[in-house]
């Protein structure tokens, strides 16, 4: 989903760039220690590895092929911070070496594929690992499913974010830029739901291969969270990681939502007017009300899902803490 220039509304691209720079700078500062000289070749070669792995095409029906995004895989191998930096490097290399992906759109592309995808992948991976690890050591099949779910989610949410950006661009610019929500959302989500399957399968296969061949190379092996009492336990555990990831992603989508809320409706109304008064009748007179509601519904849905997920995870965690303490030595 490399977006070219000229597609998104300028204000959306600008927001994308600002968000990307803020997050990237924050990551560089926070993991400044990790990016020691010694790690540069490692990150570079992993980026090169993901880049090359992206070249593996798999057919997704209808004669088209999809390819690996790799954000989730990157994060599962070496954590989200390195993954964010590495995926950004991959995007830059793709853009500068092949002209794949635009420069005004780089902010948005980076947010989707270099920030959201790794974060979601890592968050879901942590969450599911945390949930499953308590009972017994997870077998290969379970591990594979966990990785697959994380990878699929990363592609799907990234595609959703992309669809959101397209839809907001459309709404805000009165139809000059972007793609209407009624088309963008189903198209992006539909195609990427299928691509996500390929990503899930390949990511699972790769992780299983790594686990069996060279487990030492994976640095985010989830350690059983030390059972610290009370809040500390909740914050340091795998659930906390998942929550952090989802919160960051959610925060990234907020500016666009506000943009839509403030300008989008006007923009959509204007498009309706233009469509009515323009000499050429558009082929489809969109049920704009449907588009508006769909869009709002999408956001409401995401909010609701997040609230429920966070709440459930937090409660589960606290409950488990209590039981372990009760059944303690």
């Amino acid at each position, binding site marked *: 989903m490399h977006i070219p220039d000229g597609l998104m509304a300028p204000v959306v691209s600008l927001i994308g760039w600002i968000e990307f720079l803020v997050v990237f700078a924050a990551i560089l500062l926070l993991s400044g220690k990790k990016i020691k000289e010694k790690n540069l070749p490692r990150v*570079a070669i992993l980026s090169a*590895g993901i880049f090359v792995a992206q*070249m593996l095409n798999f057919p997704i029906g209808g004669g088209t092929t999809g390819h690996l995004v790799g954000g989730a895989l990157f994060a599962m191998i070496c954590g989200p911070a390195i993954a964010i930096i590495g995926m950004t490097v991959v995007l830059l290399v793709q853009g500068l070496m092949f002209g*794949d992906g635009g420069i*005004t759109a780089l902010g948005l592309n980076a947010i989707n594929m270099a920030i959201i995808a790794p974060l979601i992948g890592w968050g879901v991976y942590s969450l599911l690992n945390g949930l499953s690890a308590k009972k017994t050591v997870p077998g290969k099949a379970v591990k594979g499913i966990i990785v697959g779910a994380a990878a699929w989610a990363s592609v799907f949410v990234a595609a959703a974010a992309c669809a959101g950006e397209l839809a907001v661009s459309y709404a805000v610019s009165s*139809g000059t830029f972007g*793609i209407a929500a009624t088309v963008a959302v189903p198209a992006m989500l539909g195609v990427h739901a299928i691509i996500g399957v390929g990503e899930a399968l390949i990511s699972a296969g*790769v992780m299983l291969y*790594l686990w069996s061949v060279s487990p030492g190379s994976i640095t985010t092996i989830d350690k059983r969270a030390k059972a610290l009492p009370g809040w500390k336990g909740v914050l340091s555990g795998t659930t906390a990681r998942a929550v952090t990831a989802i919160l960051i992603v959610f925060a990234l989508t907020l500016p666009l939502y506000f943009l839509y809320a403030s300008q989008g409706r006007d923009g959509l109304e204007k498009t309706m007017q233009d469509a009515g008064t323009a000499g050429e009748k558009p082929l489809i007179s969109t049920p704009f009300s449907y588009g508006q509601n769909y869009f709002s519904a999408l956001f409401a849905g995401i909010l609701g899902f997040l609230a429920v997920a966070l709440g459930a995870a937090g409660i589960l965690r606290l409950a488990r803490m209590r039981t372990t303490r009760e059944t303690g030595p």
Partner: protein
Amino acid sequence: MTFANIGSHGGDGLDEYAGDVWFGKLDARAKLVGIFTFVVISAVLTNMELVLISLTVALALLVASRLPLTHIAKMYMAAVPFILFASVSVFLFSGWERGIEMWMRTSACVLPLLVLAAGTETFDLFAGLRRLRVPAVITTLLMLTQRYILLLSEELSRMTTARRARGFKGARNLTDRYGLKVLAFTAGMVLVRSFQRADDIYEGLKCKGFDKEMTPWRRSSIAINDVLLATGLAAVAAVLLTVQLGVIA
């Protein structure tokens, strides 16, 4: 899409043409500044005439660069899905004019970037970015990554050939469990080899006194051609922008 380009015989990637054309010999910094300015401004144009002018300039740049057109066309085809998707949808919702405008605008932005990519040695591009004050962490990562993409893609094509020699033709579809397994294992092997080499490469760098940066020895300097290109493109962009803003205001 990129696989065909990197894996193709006799090509080390796309900038094999860069050395042959006059465009390739220009200073990377000038190209970066000129083309980036032009693309950023072309991306915000909404007036049909302005978009048309910008597309014409982009095509002129393409032709003037003397880069092989079939090559650029192939690269362009890779971007087509999104462009087509956007243009058709805009067409369906807002009519002919807007649809074509979308196509022209996106193409006017994509083409100069393709010219930049194909017409410049990638390493020089990264070195140019560094000289334009992009942080060293990023440019060094870019240079190292590019160096190792070449290495790993050679390994990948060797593995692919070996697989093909054993009759593997690629996964048929997403339900082809065996095919996908092979793909996943290939990807896994590429990654494992990457890890093993990373530490060796670090030692190799330290043996040559590497200290965070990979600055090239031969440094190009700005010549009149560079100035002309950069200012030419920037001037066109500035004019287009003023008109565009005037239209909005």
